[in-house]
C-alpha cells in the first residue's frame, strides 16, 4: 500500500522533506520510524492524518505520517 512520510525540523537532515513509499499492508508506525533510523527517544510528535498516533498503530492505504523531533515554542 502507498503511504506518504513527511519529516520536519532536524529529522530532515540527511533524509527528506516528503516522500511517498510503498509498504506492506499492516505496517506499524514504529517500523517506518526504525527504517528511517530515528531512535524512539528522539521522537517528539507522531501524527497520522493529523492525529496523534502510537508507534504500534497500523498504517492504512493513503495514510500521511508526519514525524517531528521534540520541539516547542509559545
Amino acid at each position, binding site marked *: 500500500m502507498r503511504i506518504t512520510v513527511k519529516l520536519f525540523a532536524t529529522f530532515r537532515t540527511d533524509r527528506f522533506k516528503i516522500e511517498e513509499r510503498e509498504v506492506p499492508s499492516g505496517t506499524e508506525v514504529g517500523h517506518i520510524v526504525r527504517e528511517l533510523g530515528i531512535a524512539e527517544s528522539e521522537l517528539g510528535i507522531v501524527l497520522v492524518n*493529523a492525529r496523534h498516533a502510537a508507534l504500534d498503530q497500523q498504517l492504512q492505504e493513503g495514510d500521511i505520517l508526519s514525524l517531528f*523531533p*521534540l520541539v516547542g515554542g509559545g
Partner: protein
Amino acid sequence: MDKIFRVNMTDLTVKCEEVPPEWLGLGGRGLTSTIVAAEVPPTCHPLGPNNKLVFAPGLLSGTPAAQSGRMSCGAKSPLTGTIKESNSGGTSAQQFARLGIKALIIEGKPGKDCFYNLHINKDGVTIAEETELAGKGNFAVIQKVTERLGKKTGVITIGEAGEMRMAAANISVKDPDHKIRSHGRGGLGAVMGAKQVKFISIDDTDAPGVSIADPEKFKQAARTFAKTMLEHPVSGEGLPTYGTNVLVNVLNEAGGLPTKNFRYGQFEGHDKISGETMHDTIDARGGKTKHGCHSGCIIQCSQVYVDDKGQYLTSGFEYETIWGLGANCCIDVLDDIAKADNIMDDIGVDSIETAVMFGVAMEAGILPFGDGKGVIRLLRDEIGKGTPLGRILGGGAAEVGRVYGQTRVPVVKGQGIPAYDPRSVKGIGITYATSTMGADHTAGYAVATNILGVGGAVDPLKKDGQVELSRNLQIATAAIDSTGMCLFIAFPALDVPECLPALIDLINARFGASLTGDDVTGLGKTILKTEHAFNLAAGFTNKHDRLPEFFSSDPLPPHNVVWDFSEEEIDSFWDF
C-alpha cells in the same frame, strides 16, 4: 534594602518607600497583580488618573540564574478592561533588580499637555519634560537615549501608537543588541501614553547589586537548573535551532493552524513561512539563527532575520507574528511579514493583536487576504500616523470587528486569540476562555501537552482532561511569572524531575526562605484568585469566560470539529 518607587504624574513627584512586609515574598506578576488589585479601582477608566502602571522584576531577576531576566508590567488593560500583566525580556529587569527596585508604580495623570521621561539611577527617579523624542518611533528613541546617556543605558519606551493611546499599543524594552523586546499584550503602551511617559531610561552604574542569602546553595541550584535547560530537547535543541516558528509546521500538520481568519486549520503556504524555511533563509543570508533576549539566556530561542542583502529586517521574529500575518492573513512572503514586524516594533503595537486585527480587517474588505504590501502600508501610513482609519485599526481586532459589523471576530474579553485554534486544540481553548488576561496562550500553555508531547499527553480533539490541564498550567504559570524566569523553562520543568526543585532551591537560596512545591502552587492559586476577584469587581462574570459564537457553529477543517464545552464545564475551571 529593596525599595518601591512611586512616581506621581499629577504633581510630578517621586516617593521612595520601604517594601511593606506583605509584598516581600512577591515579585514579577505576583507583585504587579497584587498592587493593581489593591490600589486600582476595578471600575476606573484605564486611561484615567486612577489606573496605575506597575513595573516589577521577578524574584530571581538580577541573579546569575539562567533565564531570569524577565520584567513584569501590570495595570488595568484598556484593551480588555480586565487586570493585565505582560512580561518582557530585554535589559530592564536585571537593571531594576541590581538597583534594588522591587517595583516602580506610575500613578496619576499630568495636567500639562506634553510628554515626560523618567530617569532611574542609583540615586532615585527623576521626571523631566521630553520634547525631542515625542512623536518618534521606538528605534529612534533607543538610539537617541543611548547617545544621550551611554551605551549601557536601559530604555523602556512607547512608540507613536502608545502616545496616541491605541488599545493595541505595547511597551518596548531595549535588548542587549539595542533592538526591541516587548510587553506585548493588552494595551499597556496606551496606559503609559495616558500617563504621558514617553520613555524610562535606566542607569545601573554603581548599583548595589542583588544580595543572595546562601551563595553556595544558590550556585549548586543554578548549575542543576542550567543543566536541565540544556538537557531537554525543546529548550536545549529545538528552540535554539528553529526558534518558536518551528510551530508553523507542527500546528499545520495537526490541523490547528488558524488560517484565513480562523476558517481552516491548515494553510497551503505553510512551507514558505515555516521555521525550517526561516532557518535556511537566515543561514543563507548571514543573519543569526540563535539569539537571546537577555543576558543569562542559554536557550537562545530568538533570531536576527535579514534581507537578501544581509541588512537587518527584524529580530525576535516569533511564531505568533508569523502565524498571524502568515496563515491567518494568508500572506506567504516571509520578507513582507518581517518588514511588518519591524514596523510593529517601531510604532509599538502588539504583533499578536495587530495580526488578528488584520485578519478581521481582511474579512471586512479593508484590504484583500494575502496582501502583505497592504499590511505594511496600513501599519506605516495609517496606524503609525494616527489617521482615522489608523486609529480604528490600532484599536485591535474587536474594535475593527465592531466598526465594520463583523461576526467572525476571534477575541475573548476583547483580546485577539493567538495561533492555536481552540476547536482542534481544546486545552488552549479553555485557557483562552478562562484566563484572567483575556485570550492569552502563555497564561496556561496547554499546547505543550495537547500537541507537543511535553508534560504528558492529552488528546487535543477531545474534551477529556482539558479543564484540569489548563488549570494546572495556569496555576504553575502564574507562579513562574513571579520569578522573572522565561516561560520556556516550563518545558524542562514539566519533564525533567530535577528542574522544579532546582528552581525552588534558587528562590530559597536567594531569600533564605524554605518554600516547598506546595508553596509555589499556593502562590499561583493566590495570584489567579486575586486577578479573578479584580475582574469580577470590574464587572466581569462567568459569561465572559466564553469563546465567540462562531467557534461553536463552524466546524474547522481538516478535523471538522467545533468548540463544544458546556458553560458548566468551562465554569468548573474555577473549582480550586
